[in-house]
């Protein structure tokens, strides 16, 4: 009589043939290269800025001053980016608040309501808009939008001025984070809309059909299937837009006066962000100031990484249970 023994699982080997090996090498190399480049950029920024981090410690990102010393010791170097970090986040959030609903509405319109002859040119236009240089948006913001934005700002301060963020000290409404945020919103609407539309267009057709077959309206189908199904992808698209807004340089450079002070009053004519700080100061910076600017770049680099990682986490967590 034989006793049944549980066999140990056998080792399974995979044999790659030559063309598989070559292809594997190429794609692995490509993937690693981009990772290595990213890592090297981070490392470079950190090493070049290390002295400033060492000198200033945490006050580099909490302090507000950006003062170049005179060299003779009368005025000491004092570089910190707290005000600019706050400016970066405030302006980007304003942009997101305006861009997100516009993008969702636009994407739903294009995907579910626009007639084909309207949809096709609009989609093309949208993709083109996503590739317009931000400088153009900045110029449009200064030359045209500011006039309208100022009126909105006046109304906001008049009716909602009791809310601290809409409060103003001076009756001067141009060049404010609010206006810069609106312009950044128009800058990130195309990419966010484009991603959202793409996501919505992948809603399984039969799920939408089922809503109709149950006597649902188009709005019902959108609310109960399309939006929940696309939630994670759309958040991802919004984060892409946010990432672009965080790093936006030229438009903010044109639209905001750099003022080194914490400013949460979004209608006030002062602000700035990290990227435009770097662009403004780099040309005539002293050796030590350049190190401080590189350190600022490193902080911005980390901020963008964190935003993107958060986006990825949200996307993974909210993927529908299948």
């Amino acid at each position: 009589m034989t006793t049944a023994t549980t066999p140990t699982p056998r080792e399974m080997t995979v044999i790659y043939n030559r063309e598989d090996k070559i292809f594997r090498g190429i794609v692995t190399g490509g993937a690693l290269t981009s990772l290595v480049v990213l890592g090297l950029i981070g490392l470079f920024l950190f090493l070049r800025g290390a002295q400033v981090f060492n000198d200033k410690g945490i006050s580099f990102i909490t302090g507000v001053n950006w003062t170049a010393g005179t060299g003779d010791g009368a005025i000491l170097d004092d570089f910190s980016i707290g005000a600019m970090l706050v400016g970066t986040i405030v302006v980007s959030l304003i942009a997101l608040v305006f861009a997100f609903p516009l993008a969702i509405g636009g994407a739903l319109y294009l995907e579910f309501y626009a007639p084909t002859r309207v949809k096709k040119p609009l989609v093309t236009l949208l993709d083109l808009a996503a590739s317009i240089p931000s400088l153009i948006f900045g110029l449009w913001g200064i030359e045209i939008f500011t006039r309208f934005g100022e009126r909105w700002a006046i109304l906001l301060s008049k009716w909602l001025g009791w809310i601290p963020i809409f409060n103003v000290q001076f009756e001067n409404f141009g060049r404010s984070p609010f206006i810069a945020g609106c312009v950044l919103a128009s800058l990130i609407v195309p990419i966010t809309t484009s991603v959202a539309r793409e996501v919505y267009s992948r809603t399984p057709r039969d799920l939408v059909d089922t809503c109709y077959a149950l006597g649902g309206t188009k709005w019902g189908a959108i609310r109960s299937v399309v939006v929940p199904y696309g939630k994670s992808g759309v958040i991802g698209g919004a984060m892409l837009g946010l990432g672009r807004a965080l790093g936006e340089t030229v438009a903010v450079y044109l639209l905001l006066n750099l003022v080194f002070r914490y400013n949460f009053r979004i209608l006030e004519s002062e602000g700035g962000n990290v990227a435009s700080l770097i662009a403004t100061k780099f040309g005539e910076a002293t050796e030590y100031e350049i190190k401080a600017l590189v350190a600022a770049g490193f902080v911005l680099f980390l901020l963008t990484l964190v935003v993107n990682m958060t986006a990825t986490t949200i996307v993974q967590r909210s993927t529908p249970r299948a």
Partner: protein
Amino acid sequence: MSTSGPATTAMSAVVGAEANTFTGLETCGAHAWFGKHHALSDVSLKFPSRTVTGLIGPSGCGKSTFIRLLNRMHEFIPGAAMAGEVLHNGSDIYAPSVDAAVVRLKIGMVFQKPNPFPAMTIRENVLSGIKLAHLKKPNHDDIVEGCLTRAGLWKEVKDRLGASGGSLSGGQQQRLCIARSLAVEPEVLLMDEPCSALDPGSTLRIEETIKELAEKITVIIVTHNMQQASRVSDFCAFFLTDGGPGYLVEADATRKIFTNPSDSRTADYVQGKFG
């Protein structure tokens, strides 16, 4: 196969009852197009209340197009057009004053692939139609139990109504989809190859469900499976295409279609000589 009761009376309805006294669903000279493509030509058919009709025919003959014409799902395809009439209890569902959403509430549909809403629980899936159509119905618990029972799924899921619809097997998912369709109390249920993605056991289970459903509602089912058509349907309609638009070859009691059809092409098809 039994020829008693509804089958006999229903057959006389097919042969010729007056349109204005006819209760059920019927089409008069229905055509369908996708853009310039003429997909379906001149189909006149009657589906008496509380019967099961199988739509059979080779691929591309317009069965699915036809069934989507019956609850105005056809018009969701860009470029889709139709001609003729589809009458439900004597009134034209394509009349300009008719709200298509209301039509679909009365004439429900189950699709080929089981597709419970992925983000909803079993219970939420059953009630989804009521929510979508803003129906005011008390006693959701009774609806959930009633519909799942009619769909033959209650015993298997009663202890896990809060589980995701996606956690069920394929056959269970399809029965959940049937329960979901029943919750809005349709008078007609259209089924587009509801078993083609399922194993034989689940298929039989759904066929039993279909027969039970026909005690209360009208069922119209597209199927490629001849045995299935002969098992579940009271009537069969055979569609064909000669390369042009699909058309109706003949419609009759299922037993007649399978034993002694009027058209030799029907005989060839049901015996498996082509298709």
